[in-house]
């Protein structure tokens, strides 16, 4: 958090670390503040959430970087690699460090930024409208999870947008040119640029604010523009650019090479055989399969995503689906969405390219939040038309997925819900009796797609006991995990735990009220980040993907299943 001068008494003075400038990447040991201390700070610390008001106007408070409040800059070689790729532009690669005064920006950085802004105003109506329409009614102010957890005024969506809007007014509007600061305008300075870096990486583009805004102003759009502009002057973070470059080269953000990807999946096949006595047989890069299946690569790489992947494998085996995985298009997630629209398009383009090469009929996508934002709202526009594919039709039930008739890619939950509705799955709910679940709607699938009922329908049929969290923090009002859009990096752990607090708090509520021990979700980033979040705030609750619960409940033909007290997680 930046150092704000507060009006009211300030129990814990925020001290500026003297040695901050000299600390470098390797010297920082990330000691995360204890949960008690953070809990106290959230309630009592001087913040706009707790009743204090800064004595200075926000324009007069500079962003101060110190260990723990910024993500590490992208490594020079990653930026250079991205810049070398046809169609992409990531100029001004260099070594730099946020705590330094000198960010080694190109000499004409200001011109680059302002020209970049002009270009984007001409390309995106959303940006123009969102710059012009805000009346600062404040409806969005307390809707952002980062604001709720930090109380930092600049984490109010309206102020996050004003960081850009103030510059827009200064250089692109008559009122701003005539009246300057009186009209809320300010000049673009290095200080402003630093502020952009700090706050565009304390936004997860979750769109919760846009639900409440009377004009639908979407801070995700603003953050995307800020990040695009920052990349023009070589300012980006490694946790995003490295996965993006991995996705480009190896097909997935983990950087798994084809044989490793296959090996990992085959480990899961062995595990399933150990647990159930049934050997499932996934194929890779197989031409002529009916369906291409693409899921976030984390699902074959790390817990708890692994169990979700086991769920997919069991489900597809159970219904005898003719499908293939791809090692070339082995990433559902799209780290381009967190950088710029060109990278998003380039990474996404692999899906259709691979579907065409393999000659499949259509694509099923696994569980992932922002992946589905790209697939649902951007893919067809960027890389369509998918006229070489067919309108998705379930080979088991015959259902035609009319809602995906153009994009020709369906969500695994849509597919599974349809199977259950037609009674095509042999399910034994009691196999999930160790689970008392609650449901986390992922930001992007709820607010950029509207996938709300399908997962709930599935849950109803695979678990006996599950409970909703309180109504103002589910469905379209759901809270972000606090670490989306490439922010799930350890160096900002405190900010993540603060940003995730609203979600964790609602989980804690149902944990205490109903004994909930499992948080279900359809998002790979959630599976990784909610796990850290739960460990911190509600350690009694573990996180799982929906397909894991489906896999738990499926009764396979010819199975020789052991007593699995913890479903697919049981160690045997």
């Amino acid at each position, binding site marked *: 958090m930046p150092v704000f001068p507060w009006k009211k008494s300030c129990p814990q003075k925020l001290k500026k670390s003297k040695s901050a400038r000299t600390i470098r990447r390797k010297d920082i040991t990330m000691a995360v503040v204890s949960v008690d201390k953070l*809990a106290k700070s959230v*309630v009592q610390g001087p913040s*706009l959430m707790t009743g204090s008001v800064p004595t200075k106007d*926000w324009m007069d408070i500079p962003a101060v970087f110190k260990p723990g409040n910024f993500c590490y800059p992208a490594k020079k070689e990653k930026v250079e690699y991205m810049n070398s*790729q046809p169609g992409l532009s990531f100029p001004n690669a260099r070594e730099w460090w946020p705590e330094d005064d000198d960010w080694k920006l190109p000499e004409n950085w200001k011109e680059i930024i302002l020209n970049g802004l002009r270009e984007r105003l001409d*390309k*995106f*109506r*959303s940006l123009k*409208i969102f710059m*012009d*329409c805000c009346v*600062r*009614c404040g409806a969005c*102010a*307390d809707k952002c999870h980062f604001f*709720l957890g930090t109380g930092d005024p600049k984490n109010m969506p309206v102020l996050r947008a004003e960081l850009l809007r103030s510059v827009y007014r200064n250089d692109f509007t*008559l009122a701003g040119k005539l009246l300057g600061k*009186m*009209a*809320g305008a300010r000049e673009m300075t290095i200080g402003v640029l630093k502020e952009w870096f700090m706050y565009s990486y304390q936004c997860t583009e979750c769109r919760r604010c*846009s639900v*409440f*805004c*009377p*004009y*639908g102003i*979407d801070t995700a759009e603003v953050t995307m523009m800020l990040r695009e502009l920052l990349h023009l002057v070589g300012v980006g973070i490694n946790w995003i650019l490295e996965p993006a470059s991995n996705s480009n*080269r190896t*097909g997935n953000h983990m950087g798994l*090479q*084809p*044989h490793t990807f*296959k090996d990992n999946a085959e480990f899961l096949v062995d595990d399933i055989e150990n647990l159930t006595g049934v050997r499932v047989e996934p194929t*890779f*890069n197989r031409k002529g399969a009916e369906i291409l299946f693409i899921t976030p690569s984390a699902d074959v790489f790390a817990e708890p995503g692994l169990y979700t992947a086991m769920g997919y494998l069991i489900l597809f085996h159970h219904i005898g689906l003719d499908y293939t995985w791809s090692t*070339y298009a082995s990433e559902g997630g799209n780290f381009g969405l967190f950088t710029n629209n060109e990278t998003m398009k380039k*990474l996404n*383009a692999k899906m259709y*390219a691979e579907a065409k090469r393999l000659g499949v009929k259509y694509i099923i996508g696994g569980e992932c939040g922002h992946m589905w934002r790209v697939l*649902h*709202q*951007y893919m067809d*526009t960027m890389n*369509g038309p998918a006229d070489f594919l067919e309108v998705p039709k379930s080979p088991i039930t015959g259902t035609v997925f*009319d*809602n*995906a008739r153009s*994009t020709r890619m369906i969500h695994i939950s*849509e597919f599974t819900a*349809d199977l259950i*509705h037609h009674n095509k799955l042999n399910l034994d709910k009691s196999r999930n009796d160790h689970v008392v679940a609650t449901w986390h709607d992922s930001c992007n699938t709820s607010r950029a*797609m509207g996938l709300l*009922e*399908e997962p709930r329908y599935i849950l109803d049929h695979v678990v006996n006991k599950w409970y909703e969290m309180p109504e*103002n923090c589910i469905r*379209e*009002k759901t809270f972000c995990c606090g670490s989306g859009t490439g922010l799930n990096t350890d160096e900002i752990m405190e900010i993540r735990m603060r940003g995730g607090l*609203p979600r964790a708090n*609602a989980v804690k509520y149902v944990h205490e009220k109903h004994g909930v021990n499992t948080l279900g979700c359809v998002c790979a980033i959630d599976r990784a980040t909610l796990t850290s979040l739960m460990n911190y705030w509600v350690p009694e609750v573990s996180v799982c993907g929906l397909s894991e619960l489906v896999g738990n409940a499926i009764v396979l033909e010819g199975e020789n299943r052991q007593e699995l007290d913890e479903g697919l997680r049981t160690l045997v």
Partner: protein
Amino acid sequence: MKYTFPLAAVIALVLIAWIGSNIPGMQYVFGVVIPYLAIGTFIIGFCYRVVQWAKSPVPFKIPTTCGQQYSLPWIKHDKLEAPSTTSQVAARMFLEIVLFRSLWRNTKAEVHEGPQLTYESSKWLWLFGILFHYSFLVIILRHMRLFLDPVPGFIQALEFGDGILQVGAPTMYLTDLTILIGLLLLFGRRLVNRQVNYISLANDYFPLFLIFAIAVTGILMRFFLRTDIDIVAIKRLAVGLATFQPAIMSDIGSIFYIHLFLVSVLLAYFPYSKLMHMGGVFLSPTRNMANDSRMRRHINPWNPDIKPHSYASYEDEFREFMVDAGIPVEKELPPKAEEE
């Protein structure tokens, strides 16, 4: 204080009109020239802004879905919150523009010991907004009687309804009261709510003060400073303005010129300010687009020509590993050179 300058500005505007309209010969400037300039600025400025917005394309379909998508036939689709057709979008926009749907959702977050976060429904902003906007709308419609001859029936009906309480003489209009209350509440909110207070700019206070002054001068004219107000002369001037034959027949009191001048300022200020939210709300891509992006392909006019990192170069890089792992390849490995 961010509201001192806007307050001073509005007071200055009042003084300008008061003093100015008392200078002989200046009535024509304040009664005719400035209103025409203001209306011209408003119309041209408003159109210019809308055209400027419209000139930028909408590259992606990005509705914010606030309900269940259209998917399987047995899953209930929320047609208003995640519309998939144009008519559903129109219905959603209607709710948004006419009933302020999104503000109706508003909650107030609080942090308590624990920590425990709560989000209670909070409809005050919705109420204040409705109160102000609808009062303003009715007042504007009522004023149409000055420009139209004969006065249309619906305006007479509106006037009758607005004065239904029949308090005072001349009859008090409800909206005169409610617009003042609405403005005071909206202003009070900017003072009291610490978050809103911190984000408020001078250009948030200025329109509040300006419209407040317009309402007050209007009320003064109707109820308190009636003696030097010749309603017939005003109507003639208004009809004259509307028919491009403006004429000032007789002396009209200063209060009228102040009122008219403030309205002129509001009109001229409108297109260059946040008041353009009136136009922008219709064009917001998160609200006015259908959630049908997997059903109908949306075209981005500047869609860049970008190809993926090709499968061929991927296979070239990893072919050996792929063959070893039994993953099918397009191009087999070259036969190994005979080792000697």
